[in-house]
């Protein structure tokens, strides 16, 4: 059987766009019998055209989701997503894959729970197996005051019809036998479970959105770095790139980690510092953990991937950094917290460790907003919580781009909130990003 491969040398018009077809178990079975020769590229590798209605800078989770929802929900298909490297190698491929909506402030609960609802139907919508696994997220508490705080948080969630359960010590031990309940310094008093929380395979999120956006007519342009933002007075006209100028009616920046650089190109400053966050994965072991577990007496969270490795992380390294690598003191800190909680893991070896740079905003909450430039929209400041918010972030950013006014669920995430004195500070820490 001779099939035409979709190679780079072929030039596609929109009509000839490489279509990967519908994925299904039946097709997988059929391809298995035919030697898997019938698969084509999941998304079309586009070259930049001189003009688009919307140009999105950054093909990470937020950028690709924004493009997908622009095309499918708002009918704007003349969209390009520009990425300096290959897609999915930034923070969408570097996180610890956790999804949840167990927040304290009501506007955050509503926003992140909308995201969780979109995750729940995502694979069907995208026709892509993102391995959404709602195994539950369990936050442990170790003091009476922590119990009060978590109870208040859980009650706040339940008032908004979001699932939250209180677990006592026995229930925690049943769910996670590895936890040392009777640590001398930080005994576990109980837990706060969100059964709908869980994990999603992060790479598949980037690939799934890219494939679905491409099929809907979006151009995904890799290896094209933005070097400047062209403006006329206070109006954005397009982006200068390493592959030439691309004009656009609307430009959206979704480049968490480097938002300050892009904002500087556009001539304004952001309430953001860039910090590095590390993550770790252990050697694969048999199933030992079937929830996402967070420690309450230190910064440590862990889940077990389907391959068996324990995926875990802690806090940011604590000082401004663009180095996509972590330093050892924080690695030691994370390991110490993990072993205090689960001493049985002491002989587990760490397989890999990596770092991602993130926008730490001044109140710990993201920014989805208009900017001082007309026609320039920014999606940034995700701190270390951007992954779980990909569907809602994409949908609300697409709403802002298409309609010109903010989505009701993200109206509180505007840039003006800092000057207006209505910061969304989940932990009440103030404008000190290294503490968030």
């Amino acid at each position, binding site marked *: 059987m001779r099939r035409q491969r979709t190679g780079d040398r072929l030039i596609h018009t929109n009509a000839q766009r490489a279509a990967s077809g519908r994925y299904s178990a039946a097709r997988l079975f059929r391809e298995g019998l035919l030697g898997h020769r019938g698969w084509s590229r999941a998304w079309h590798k586009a070259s930049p055209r001189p003009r688009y209605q919307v140009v999105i800078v950054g093909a990470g989770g937020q950028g690709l989701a924004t493009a997908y929802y622009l095309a499918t929900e708002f009918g704007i298909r003349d969209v390009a997503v520009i990425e300096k490297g290959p897609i999915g190698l930034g923070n969408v491929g570097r996180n610890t894959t956790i999804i949840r909506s167990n927040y304290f402030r009501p506007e955050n609960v509503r926003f992140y729970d909308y995201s969780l609802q979109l995750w729940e139907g995502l694979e069907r919508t995208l026709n892509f197996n993102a391995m959404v696994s709602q195994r539950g997220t369990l936050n442990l508490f170790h003091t009476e005051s922590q119990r009060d705080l978590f109870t208040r948080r859980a009650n706040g969630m339940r008032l908004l019809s979001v699932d939250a359960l209180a677990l006592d010590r026995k229930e925690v031990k049943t769910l996670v036998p590895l936890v040392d309940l009777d640590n001398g310094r930080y005994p576990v008093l109980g837990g706060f479970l969100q059964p709908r929380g869980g994990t999603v395979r992060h790479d598949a999120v980037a690939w799934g959105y890219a494939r679905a956006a491409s099929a809907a007519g979006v151009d995904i342009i890799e290896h094209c770095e933005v070097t400047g933002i062209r403006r006329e007075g206070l109006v954005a006209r397009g982006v200068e790139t390493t592959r030439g100028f691309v004009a656009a009616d609307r430009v959206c920046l979704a480049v968490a980690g480097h938002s*300050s650089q892009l904002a*500087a190109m556009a001539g304004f400053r*952001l309430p*953001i*510092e860039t910090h590095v966050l590390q993550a770790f994965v252990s050697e694969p072991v048999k199933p030992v953990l079937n929830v996402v577990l967070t420690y309450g007496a230190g910064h440590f969270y862990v889940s077990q991937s389907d391959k068996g490795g324990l995926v875990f992380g802690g806090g940011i390294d604590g*000082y401004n950094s663009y*180095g996509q690598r972590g330093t050892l003191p924080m690695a030691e800190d994370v390991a110490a917290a993990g072993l205090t909680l689960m001493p049985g893991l002491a002989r587990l070896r760490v397989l890999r460790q990596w770092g991602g740079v993130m926008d730490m905003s001044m109140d710990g909450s993201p920014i989805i907003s208009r900017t001082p430039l007309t026609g320039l929209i920014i999606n940034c400041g995700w701190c270390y919580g951007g992954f779980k918010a990909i569907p809602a972030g994409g949908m609300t950013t697409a709403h802002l781009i298409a309609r010109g006014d903010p989505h009701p669920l993200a109206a509180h995430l505007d840039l003006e909130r800092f000057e207006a004195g209505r910061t969304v500070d989940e932990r009440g820490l103030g*404008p000190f990003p290294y503490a968030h």
Partner: protein
Amino acid sequence: MLRIECPWCGVRDETEFRYRGDASRSPPAATASLAEFCAQTYTRENPRGWHLEWWLHVGGCRKLLKVVRHTDTHEIHAVGHPHEALAVPMETRAP
């Protein structure tokens, strides 16, 4: 691992210090506008390059230091007393 040369204690590991943020900003005048106060409180230059910052030597002399550090390579260019005006190399500052 950073090694910071404290002017009072000598070279020490980063674990003895706590980061205390951007030191390039100075408080606005009492007569400054609301917008200036807001910019001072919330916005940052956030350079990818040399950065003037505060570090507190909590595990040593408990004094505040000024440090010029590269935010990508983590190289430390200079460490000084809080009132010292440290020169920040300009060549590799963010655009």
